[in-house]
């Protein structure tokens, strides 16, 4: 939950916005604001996670700085979101990971890569680590890889469950079974289409200034689709391995490879684009930047880069090192899933669901 200071500022801002309402066509936040009978810590947790940080309301605000009201919804909501990601995070001892985003990412990368380097060296033998290799499983047996990541995935899912349960209750959502299918479907549609990044007119968001742009939305789509393709590649690969008894490596024209390579390229382009978007963001829209926001982009980028490098390195002496680095990136990414920026997707989805549910009440 946001701190008293952030909550107080968000309530001050919402009170003025609710008396103005000029922005209600931009996104879901303002119609949702109008439905609240009073502003409290809990509905600030809801409204701030509904905000997609498109910047339209700030660029169009008659009360923005230098006006004495100094209204800046995106900045205060970003701060409130960051605080809600922190406060709800399970287990509590991981909460500093949010507040020290870059440090958490750097540490998890360093530790994960070192672990895999050690493991690969142990398996292949120090003298053979740089010998040309074709098969990953000579460097690290499939069973070891599968065990590590199954365990990591389990930890991620448990952490999500505990974190999001708290958030769900905090914003007063009823039991999942009592929410209508239509609300689920509308919320998922809004999340997948990033409806709230279209500015209300379809021309896009204003994070880098007064001109609307669709690029942030497009890059985010690339990342999301690329991520799903890579995830599918893994699932299909697992099926090939266990179901069909066809172990990796797979040829270029096999399904796992096609999905993985396409997804990997989309991730590279999408992440680079989002990184660029971040650099050009109007600094006034950002309340704090500790690298938390970019950590996921960076990890996804390097995971795909090293992943795409693997088939190219096949048969060379670089494969061993590259595999260790890639697996290290993937493990760091798993840590981000649980305790990093990745959770923003779920917070938003739940906020969108709460919005749709409130509309039906």
């Amino acid at each position, binding site marked *: 939950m946001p701190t008293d200071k952030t909550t107080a500022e968000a309530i001050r801002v919402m*009170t003025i916005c609710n*008396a103005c*309402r000029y922005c209600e066509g931009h996104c879901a936040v303002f119609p949702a604001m109008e439905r609240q009978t009073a502003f409290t810590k809990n509905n600030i947790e809801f409204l701030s996670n509904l905000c997609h940080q498109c910047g339209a309301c700030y660029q*169009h605000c*008659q009360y923005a700085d230098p006006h004495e009201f100094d209204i800046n919804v995106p900045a205060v909501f970003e701060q409130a979101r960051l605080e809600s990601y922190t406060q709800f995070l399970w287990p509590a001892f991981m909460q500093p990971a949010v507040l020290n985003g870059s440090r958490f990412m750097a540490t998890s990368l360093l530790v994960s890569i070192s672990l895999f380097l050690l493991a690969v060296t142990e398996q292949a033998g120090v003298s053979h680590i740089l010998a040309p290799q074709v098969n990953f499983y000579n460097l690290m047996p499939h069973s070891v890889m599968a065990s590590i990541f199954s365990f990591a995935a389990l930890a991620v899912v448990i952490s999500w469950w505990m974190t999001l349960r708290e958030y769900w209750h905090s914003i007063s959502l009823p039991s999942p079974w009592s929410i209508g299918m239509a609300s689920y479907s509308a919320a998922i549609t809004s999340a997948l289409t990033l409806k709230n990044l279209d500015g209300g007119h379809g021309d896009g968001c204003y994070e880098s200034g*007064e001109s609307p742009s669709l690029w942030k939305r497009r890059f985010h789509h690339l990342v999301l689709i690329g991520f799903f393709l890579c995830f599918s590649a893994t699932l299909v690969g697992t099926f090939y391995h266990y179901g069909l008894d066809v172990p990796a490596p797979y040829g270029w024209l096999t399904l796992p490879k096609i999905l993985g390579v396409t997804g990997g390229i989309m991730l590279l382009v999408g992440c680079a684009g989002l990184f660029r978007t971040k650099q050009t963001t109007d600094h006034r829209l950002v309340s704090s930047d500790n690298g938390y926001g970019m950590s996921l982009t960076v990890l996804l980028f390097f995971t795909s880069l090293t992943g795409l490098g693997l088939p190219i390195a096949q048969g060379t002496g670089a494969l061993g090192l590259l595999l260790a680095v890639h697996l290290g990136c993937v493990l760091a990414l798993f840590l981000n899933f649980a305790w990093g920026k990745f959770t923003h997707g779920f917070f938003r989805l739940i906020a969108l669901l709460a919005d749709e549910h409130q509309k039906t009440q």
Partner: protein
Amino acid sequence: MTSTDHFDVIVLGGGQAGLTAAITAAENGASVCILEVAPRAMRGGNTRHTRNLRPMHESGAFPMEGAYGFDEYLDDLLRVTGGETDHALAELTIRESEHAITWLQDHGVAFQPPLSGTLHLGRTNAFFLGGGKALVNSLYRFAANLGVHTVYEATNIDLNISGTRFIDLTYQQESNTHRISGHCLVAAAGGFEANLDWLEEAWGPAARNFLVRGTPYNKGNILRQLLDAEFKQVGDPDQCHAVAIDGRAPTYDGGIVSRVDSVPLGIVVNNAGKRFFDEGEDFWPKRYAIWGRLIAAQTDQIGYAITDAKADGLFMPTVLPPLKSKTIDGLAKQIDIPAAALLQTIDQFNAATISGSFNHQALDDCRTQDLLINKSHWARKIDTPPYSAYPLRPGITFTYLGVAVDNQARLQVGSGNACENIFAAGEVMAGNILGHGYLAGIGMTIGHVFGRIAGKEAAKHAH
């Protein structure tokens, strides 16, 4: 002093009217310069605080809900102005307003369905997505792409007018003086509502207690120079659009959020604790504009809108909470008016209410009888604590005093001729059409229509 730059058209004022004139002139081949007195972040004059205009339309296509034809529009305008309008210009404005939505959309402005809480305006008024500042940003962006040169913080503009002809001007920016000349001048720099000295000339000391709802930059510098140059005047200096707003709002620039909509749900007293007008005469959006003047006429230009708990939640939320008390006595102490007088007023009011079925969304039958000043609708006893009070002050939106124009937006000279190269658009000439009263969105409509006319005629004249 730098060397003199020359433009075909110089536009004074970068609100909607000025931007529309500048864009139209540039699209007709003119080189254009806008001088905007405000800094970039506060540009756009009162347009920054607006949210809609009122276009005539026969179809009811998006964003409009239902048709609003010429005859009905003209009737509305004649009714609110009490006939104080130049008929030919009024008809011209209405006819030309039909193209406003398309023109604005073509120039990057987006529209949206009517905002919530805007009773009855969905059919007549087109709302800008994101409000007036979004419109201002779009038009500045479009103008810049056309090569229109904009100077911000251009202060102390000094016009050099020879006879009735504009020659050149000087302005100051960051303590440097610049001189620019132009074939034509478009005056679109608004009224003088932010000039408390000038308001005091017209209103007397009462003006010191007025709040200015809009931009602090409309000091009337250009209007004053044009009137001093003996161009023909329209309207009177003491005519202004003033509404009753929260007395605790900032002196300038409070805008829409300073509104208090609780008046029809209770009573309004002055600081002697007496009522002075029928609070339930009509729906608040149709009446708030007369309440500015009513409060301006009270001692110390202050009133108090008083309601009881039954009214809570029935009106638009306010930025500042009301003053509250469990007793009338306690409320009187908080707002510092004689408790005995307030108690007496409320007792008399309560005794005079006749029971009906209360409906705040219709002109209901809850009223008072046998009072000196009766309340026509929504009159319910003020008897349920806690009681609330909002202090009310006159909040001035715009002034009506302006310069007379013809159908080419040209200034008029006393002898009945038109000036060759000075045009006007927006609030500075709105008094030609709106000599009295108010119609939601009419100011922006006049600004749009005359902005386009002035831009086109100025570009034509410059070639």
